[in-house]
């Protein structure tokens, strides 16, 4: 990974999940609105402390949250409250 030994590659196909499509769409929408660029997103992904523990789109989501908080578009509290409200309404994933 990144030129460092990363063990064997899992070549199995991965079915794209709905939340992953949504993560991709939100990313494109934020780019379209000028709120986020690919370079900023890459930088945010690289700086995630839990980088190696996250899947590809988990990194995308975590980096997008980080950028939106950094830019003052949303606060962490607002995001946490909304997530809690969705969980109350729809149940645990």
């Amino acid at each position, binding site marked *: 990974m*990144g*030129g460092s030994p990363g063990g064997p590659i899992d070549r199995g196909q991965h079915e794209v999940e709905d939340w992953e499509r949504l993560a991709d769409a939100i990313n494109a929408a934020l780019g379209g609105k000028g709120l986020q660029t690919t370079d900023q997103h890459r*930088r945010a992904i690289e700086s995630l402390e839990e980088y190696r523990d996250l899947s590809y789109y988990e990194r995308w989501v975590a980096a997008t949250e980080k950028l939106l908080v950094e830019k003052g578009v949303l606060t962490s509290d607002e995001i946490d409250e909304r997530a809690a409200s969705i969980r109350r309404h729809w149940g645990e994933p």
Partner: protein
Amino acid sequence: MTFEPGDNVRVLPSEKPGHVRTPGYLKGKAGWIESLVGEFPNPEELAYGFSGKPERPLYRVGFRQADLWDDYEGPAEDCLYADVYEHWLEPGEGAPT
């Protein structure tokens, strides 16, 4: 442009912090200029919300796989091509290969 196709180059062994677009496994490695890709805003500054201007030349740089990896077992002619910005390159030694 500082470099021409066929020039030998070396990737700077810099440990510059923050977002860089040069793969870590190429740092300090010798290669050659394959072609000029174009000039682009510097992604290392775009990553932090700056303009990235002035634009920086981006080269396609060739490397021998055997120069990059210890114990490389593939054919000797195997190459790897990577796009590297000019500010990550310095002149290399020897004649073009």
